[in-house]
Structures are given as structure tokens and as C-alpha cells.
């Protein structure tokens, strides 16, 4: 397990580059869907470690799934799905769903609150509750529909990949709890290697379309999956080709610079105007003299 310090890579709504950045190993969580038995140990471990209260009176979901969806107190959810394949074979998929810790996090791009969202050099994208203003831009900015607003506190939360545990050299709580090694934690390079080995095994066992889910549209993610049917990620409740939305990119990218250009251009124009024409003098008729 890598001991990783939490060097900051990016901060929401920052005007200066993140301080103190240095090379740090990129961490990742691997979810091998083919060996998930849906035991939900990860769900409980997450809640217990993060002091999230259980929803005893949650609605009936019609399946073995705990909650209908993620919630401010439920940061990861195993989605249960019954799929009848063309050959008559039934599959019951159990797919753990949570923040993907994108390399290019839409939430962070969208966040207007300084320091509310931090991306660490190890790849973890973390929400800093005390800086959150509850505007919800991160929710719309997330291509995986992950962050959730707590109506009581007016703040948004999501999986932190147990940044507190990782900083102390421990694996995230969900990984600690997983009994089948469906979940593993380590450097992304190492886990990609394991993931591809498992994919090869799956191909041998009759899943020709097995593959790794590490979507490039968000710059890759720090939560990666082994999917037996990687051609159909939507069967597992995963978006097929997630991207940071172009409006967000435009808004926070070129448009942001255009905005800056307009603002700074105006200031510069005014200054140049001053140098060229000197201070503006009031006309006599305006002063009423």
C-alpha cells in the first residue's frame, strides 16, 4: 500500500497555481465487477468510517439494492441489475457506484467556491466542507451524477476515497471491508496491470468483450472497473462515454479567459487611454460653472 502525502494539484476557483506541488504516486481503486457478490460490506464500512447516519426508513427499492440512489449520507451504492442476455443467460450484476475521482474533475471545474474542491497530486478529488457554499454547480458539473446536497447543512458531499486514511498510509474503508478482493487499492499503474490480467482471464472464461473502464473523456479516473461486458457499461449503471460537459469546459476554459481578457482588456484600455490622453477633465458646462 503506498503511503501518500496529500500534495495538492488543483483547487476550485483558484487564481493561482496550487502550492507545493511535487510528484506523487497516483492512487486508484479497482472494482472487479466479475467478483462482486453484492455483500454491501463496503457500503457499511463507508458509512461507519465517515460517520454517516443510516437511513433505517429508506423506501423499498424493489430489488436487493440498498438505496434507490446515492445520497448525502450514502456515498457508495452497489447497483443491482437483472439482465437477460440474448442467449437466454441471466446475469445479476452488482456494481459499486461512487465518485470516480476523475483526472479532469468536472466538479472542480464547475465549483465557484475557493478551496471547496481540492484535487490532490495522488489523484483524489476531495470536497472541503467548510468552504462549500452549497451552490450545487459541482452536481451539474459531474458527468457521473455523484455529489449530493445535504439539505440540513446546505453542503455537498461525496466519496473522499478516504483521503484521511490514505494520508495515513491506510487503504480506503471499503477496500478494507471487501471479502472477495473485488476491490483493491494501490497505484494506478499497478492496478491497471492487475485489471488487464483479470480481463484476459474473463476473456478465456467466455466474456470476449471484457475490458477495463477508465474513461478517457474525463482524463481517466482513479476508480477503475473490470467489466465482463465492457462494450455495454450502461448495463452496470456506468455512462458509456462520460465527458466534462462542453459548456463547462467553455465556461471555465476559453470563456473564462475571454472574460478575463474583457475585464483586463478594459482596465488596460483605460490605462493606455490615460497615458495617451491624460486624466479626464470635466467639461465646464458639466460642472455647472
Amino acid at each position, binding site marked *: 500500500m503506498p503511503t501518500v502525502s496529500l500534495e495538492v494539484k488543483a483547487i476550485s476557483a483558484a487564481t493561482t497555481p496550487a502550492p507545493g506541488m511535487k510528484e506523487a504516486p497516483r492512487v486508484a481503486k479497482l472494482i472487479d465487477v466479475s467478483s462482486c*457478490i*453484492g455483500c454491501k460490506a463496503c457500503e457499511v464500512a463507508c458509512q461507519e468510517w465517515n460517520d454517516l447516519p443510516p437511513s433505517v426508513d429508506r423506501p*423499498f427499492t424493489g430489488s436487493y439494492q440498498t438505496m434507490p440512489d446515492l445520497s448525502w449520507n450514502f456515498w457508495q451504492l452497489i447497483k443491482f441489475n*437483472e439482465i437477460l442476455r440474448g442467449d437466454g443467460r441471466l446475469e445479476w450484476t*452488482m456494481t459499486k457506484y461512487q465518485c470516480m475521482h476523475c483526472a479532469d474533475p468536472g466538479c472542480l471545474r464547475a465549483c465557484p467556491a475557493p478551496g471547496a474542491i481540492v484535487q490532490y497530486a495522488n489523484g483524489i478529488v476531495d470536497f472541503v466542507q467548510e468552504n462549500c457554499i452549497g451552490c450545487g454547480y459541482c452536481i451539474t458539473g459531474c458527468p457521473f451524477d455523484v455529489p449530493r446536497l445535504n439539505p440540513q447543512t446546505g453542503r455537498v458531499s461525496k466519496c473522499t476515497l478516504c483521503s484521511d486514511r490514505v494520508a495515513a498510509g491506510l487503504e480506503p474503508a471499503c477496500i478494507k471491508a471487501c471479502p*472477495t*478482493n473485488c476491490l483493491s487499492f494501490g497505484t494506478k499503474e499497478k492496478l491497471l496491470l492487475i485489471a488487464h490480467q483479470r480481463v484476459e482471464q474473463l476473456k478465456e472464461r467466455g466474456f470476449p468483450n471484457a475490458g477495463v473502464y477508465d474513461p478517457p473523456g474525463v482524463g481517466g479516473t482513479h476508480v477503475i472497473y473490470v467489466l465482463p461486458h465492457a462494450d455495454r457499461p450502461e448495463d452496470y449503471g456506468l455512462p458509456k462515454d462520460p465527458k466534462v460537459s462542453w459548456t463547462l469546459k467553455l465556461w471555465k476554459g476559453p470563456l473564462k479567459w475571454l472574460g478575463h481578457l474583457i475585464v483586463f482588456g478594459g482596465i488596460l484600455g483605460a490605462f493606455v487611454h490615460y497615458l495617451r490622453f491624460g486624466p479626464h477633465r470635466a467639461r465646464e458646462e458639466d460642472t455647472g460653472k
Partner: protein
Amino acid sequence: MTNGWTDIANADVIVAMGGNPAENHPVGFRFVMEAKRKRNAKLVCVDPRFNRTAAVADHFVQIRTGTDIAFLNGLIHYALQNGRYNEEYIKYYTNAPFIVKEGYEFDEKEGVFSGWDESKKTYGDKSTWDYERDDQGYVKVDLTLQHPRCVFQLMKKFFARYTPEVVAQICGCSKEDFLKAADIITSTYVPAKAATFLYALGWTHHSHSVQLIHAAAMLQLLLGNVGVAGGGVNALRGHANIQGGTDCGMAYHNTAGYIPIPKAANQSLKEYLEAHTPKPLRPNSMNFWQNLDRFFVSQLKAFYGDHATKDNDFGYHLHPKLPEDPQTGKPENWSWAFIFDAMHQGKMEGFISFGMNPVNNGPHSRKVIAALAKLKWLVVVETFQTETAAFWKPDILKLVGLKPEDVQTEVFLLPAANFAEKDGTFTNSGRWIQWKWKAIDPPGEAKPDQEIIARLFLKVRELYQKEGGKFPDPVLALNWWYTNPANPSLEEVLKEINGWALTDVPDEKDPTKVVLKAGDQLSAFLQLRADGSTLSGNWLYIGVYTNAGNLAKRRSTEDPTGLGFFHNWSFNWPANRRIMYNRCSADAQGRPWDPNRPVIAWRNGKWVGDVPDYKADAPPEAVTTGLGPFIMLPEGVARLFVPGQFADGPFPEFYEPLESPVKNVLHPSHSSNPVAVVFQTTQYDKLGTPDEGYDIACTTYRLTEHFHYWTKNNPYNVQLQNEFFVEIPEELAQKKGIRNGDMVRVISARGEVRGRAMVTKRIRPMVVNGRTVYQIGMPIHWGFLGRGKQEGGLANILTPTVLDPNSFAPEYKGFLVKLEKA
């Protein structure tokens, strides 16, 4: 388990049948995943539902609940017909070559074995279910396996009926699905391959449960998969220490170490030993139970200490004896369901429910509630208030039409510490006796079990001392030697379970030598003596606490062979042996069947590897001349044919559940187990029929998210599954106009429950014997008390009071219901 949890990782094929290990043993299931990853093992799941195990299986076959024997018998037939069995293995390690008595017969048309008395509906004469003997009382064998009455030939004839077509017809699966499973499973008959069978209550909860496990054992023996790494017939136990409970005499019919309980008919120790010590059936058989006198006398010394002397039969007269039933002349039956039948008949004054919740456990909660209402007093020892402790409350009592004022039972609820609030040992399914350390103090006045027992005992003893009584001797003579009598340390108890020498113990071969000095802890079975010089609470656990200390505390992860033996992790009964019957892992010459997975091997005049389950210095060839590898049996070999020990036949025949949507296609006249125990004593002992509208097969089960009826008190578990539900096939739901999430009523001949419909593709309708049969299922974890929605969603309100005739386990998994939208 014949093998252990870690050994599952050595398997090539894993069969999950009669159990749902991914659901109910998720932690142990890691070894299934390891086998899949490291050995490319195949997981085959056979179950009435597409369950969590099926979700990660390589092949799943849906069968109708209660038809597992037909499926297994089909596999046996497939193996026999296709020559997929290990001939050398069955020749020397099983009773396949044994010749069976003339007169033994199976009536294929009637579905009964010889000796059946139709007028009395019982096997009046089981004498033909036996071997043919020679003049010395030894069994006659034919190692060519050709004798028409040898077990092997009888098997071929018996199983010939279970063709793939018949299996498909009975089980409701497709022939192709069966054949694919048969091919994968029986492919392990070659020496270098092994299959493991993982089962649990899905097999034991039937009216034919013992024969079911018998069928699985037969198949595994044919394939040569018993005693080998990655093989075995493995019972996955349902509680952390249920194995320990079973080992230590929890069942009514034996004392600790599976020693038969004394019966009223045997009034002296001599009579008892004569009745229960088996005679060898082969010339050189080890027949290890010949040591019963050593085991039992040492146990009596543990029970009665100085009050057990040679002159008084070691206190045999103090030991409780199972009374004779005056009507049948047989020993009384005090197994679980019989207790509540007797209670309902008013034969019991009081009941101590220690860590049990009979109202919820059933079978048939209403009968249990009605029975509890007839008691004078009830003591419940539990970590939470249970439905049993609260049975007198109006919403529970109304199930039997009573009000609290109608009930005179005085109820005491004693708060107990839970598992984390006390130390002690857990014996896991793989027989590992593992010490655990207390994590926190119990809350409030909660006490650990041993303190509750000790205080009750001391009070009872005090009363006997003061007031005398009918027979105070057993209580007054009990050996209560613990440093703190009111709260014995479990270290001391474990020490006593292991046992020690009371005086110097001389070597039996050379009396001038001393094997043990007085006070030495025992470290081997045959250090026990039948003369009162040794004391041991449970002979099977010898070795767990030696002069070297408490070995249950060992935690070494050293695994030099890489086979997952972990000999220095805890202590594995018997004798720290990790794989039982491991002599079978090598051929008759002592060469491991699979050189890559040698459990034991004969090298330089001794057996090396795992602790050998064989005479340590016996050469390999001894196995061909009667010194068999199944040392506990007088035959020395495994019983394919069971000579009279089972109530329902020497071979496993397929019988329908007592309540079944269809008649047995093989023999409709004896459709269900003809000797199943069917209570008829109370108004609650009722069975329904399809003609009365009960035409849907129903089964009950457990969920990962809950542990029995405890976790409904824990908000995290409740959140994960917070409501009682009924799993219903889509087609049936459509037919009944039920949508996912609707409330439904499920009604059996005995009661009804309401729950939320969970409409699913995971149970499919089946065509059985030409007609469509539907199955539904429900988890057991709800009731009346606890967090979340309880509302009486208690599955055992529906289950029948029908039992297996050998184990007396109720038929919780296979009964009939009606289904309605509520």
C-alpha cells in the same frame, strides 16, 4: 467440513448446492474467488433461485426446491455410466466391493426398501440392510467389483433410473443444463483434479436431508474427491461457533465428542460400553471407536472429579440418561421440534432459552407460541429482547388467538454479553478452534454465558444442599473446580475440555516408562486411559491446550506447502489435522493422486505432510488388507451403502417434500419420504395440498445483510434490508396482477404473512412432469421486534412441522403456499 475454508482455494471445480456461500459466507467465499483466479476453477451453482452465488458462477442450474437428491443421483448415474469414477479409490477406500446380504432389495415401483411394512407405514425389519459376513464376523468383499450383490453393482442398478431425462423431468431444469453441470463436476474423477461441494441449510432443511448429504458424499467418493486437497463434502456452518456447539454435545443424543448419550436401558457402564463400542468389520480395521471407554471414562472424570471412581463406575449412575418412551420402547426424542411438541402437550414445566429464539426459529411459529403459553416459567438469555421473551405481548399472542391475561407463564429475560463482549473460542466450519479476545465490556447488567450458567448452577446446588431433593447427587457431585466458581475463566474451561493426567500415566507397552506425569496436559488421543487416571471434557479437542499452552491462540501465517494448511494457526481438531480422511489423497502405494497437491505422502517409512488420518507408521499397502483410511468406522472404508444406520434406507432415494406441487414421478404411491416425522398432535400440525389451492412451492432463506434475528436491532443492517419481502417470478406476478413493491399475502395451511413483492427474473417458472410450477421464496429475518418495519413479517409462521427421520431437522425449504395481492 471434511476440509477447511482455506482449502477451497485448491479446488478445480466448486459446487455450491444446498447452500448460498456468496450470500451467507461472504468472507469464506474469498477462497472460491481465489480458486477461480489462481486455478481457473469453475463454480457450478445449483439452486431454486438465481442467487448471489449464481451471480458469479460459471454455470447455474435452477432446480425445484426439494429435488436435490434427484439431481445428485443423476450425477452419480452419469459418473457410473460414463466410467467417470476412480476405480482404485472406490476399491480400497469405500465399501463398493462389500457384499450385501441376500434379501436386500429396493422396490422401484413402490419406492421402498426391503423390510417395509405397508400396514404400519414403517420399516419393521431392517436386517437386510447389512453386509454378508464370514465366520469371524468380518465382511465378505469382492475386489473385482463384479459380484452381483456387491455395493458397486447394487449402485449401478439403483441409480440407473436417474437418467438426464428423468432428472430434468423431476427438477424442472433443462436436460442440457444438467448435462453441462454433470460434465463439469464429473470431470474431476481424474487423479489430478478435485471438486469441492459446499452445502449448508439448503440441504439440511428437508424431510430427506441426511440422504441428500449421503448422495453428495457418494458422488464425491466415486470421483475420488474425499480426503484430497480441494475436495471434500463441506458443510458451511451458519453461526460462528455452531461447529463448537455440535462438537461439545449440544444435541440431545450425544455428549461432547459425539459420545452417545447414555440410555435408560443401560444401567451400568459395562452395559453402556457393550452397547456402543463397535466391533471391527475388516481384519485390520483401526475401528477407533473401540476407544470409547477411554473417551467416556475420562469425560466422566471431568464431570464428576473425585466422585468418579473405579468402584462406582466412574459416576456413570450420576450421568443423565435418556428415558425410554413407554409407548415405543425406544429412547425418547428430545430434538428441537419434539421439545415444542412435548411443551404443547403440557409435558414441560419450564424452558431455558439460551441464545435461541424459538418463536422465530420455528418450525411453525404459531405452534411454538402456543407451546410457550403452556409453560409455568420461561427463562430467556439473550442480548436483545426477542420475540420469545415477548411472546406474551398482544400482537404476537394473537397469532394463536390468546390474550396476555390468558397466559400464566412467568418470563425472565437475562441480559447476556454478545460475542465481542467475552473471550473464549469459536470453532469454525473447518474445525479450527480459534481463540478470540474480548473487545469491550458488556453493557449494564449483561453477563457472559459462563457466569450466567455458573450462578444458576451455584444457586441450584445451594438449594439441593439445603433442602435435599429427589436425586441431589449429580448436582452435588459435579466437578466445579474453577478458580472463580461464579464466573469460570474460559481458559480453565478449555484446559479441562482438553484434559490432563490425574496421576502418572505409564506407557501401555512398557509400564516402566511414564507417558505423562500427573498434572500434564494431554496431547494425544491415546494418552487417555479408561482407568480414571486421565480427565478430558472432550476427547476430540485433545491437543488444543497442551503443556505448551493454549494453542487456539496461535496465529502463524506460515504455509510452507502453499496448500493453505497453516498448521500453526489455531488448533484444528482432530489432532491438528487440516484435511480429514487424508490417507485417501494418495493411492494404494502411497503416491499422492496429484503430485502438485500432496496432502500426505509415504516417505522414508513415515507419512509426511498434513497430520496423517491413518496409523502413523502403517505402510501404504496396509490399505489393501483391511487397514482402511476411514479409521472411525468399523469398516475402515467410507459407506456408499449405509448398513442400517439411517432410518430411510441404505441408498438415497428421491422423495418429494411432504408438501409438494406434484407427485413423485418415480413412485407416486410413496411420493414423499415414507418415514419422515410428521407431527399430528396439535391443530398447528397441518399439511396443505395443491387440490386445496396450495399450489406454489415456497422456500425460505437468509440474506447477507442480516444475521438471523439479531441484526434487526442494528440500524446499519436494517438500512441494508429494512423490510420483509417475497421474491416472486415475473410470470407469476403478472398472472396475479402483482407489481414490484405491492403488498402481498402468502398463505400456507398453517398461517399467513404479509410482505412486499419483489418481482424478479431470478426465479423462473418450471415445467415439471408436464405442468407449469411456480416457486417463490422469502428471507427469514423479520418478526415483531427491532428497528425498521417488522410488522410480523415472520417466514416461519408458514413452515410445516415435518422432520427428517435421522437428523430431525425441519423441512423449512420446500412447502406449499397460496399467493395473493394484499
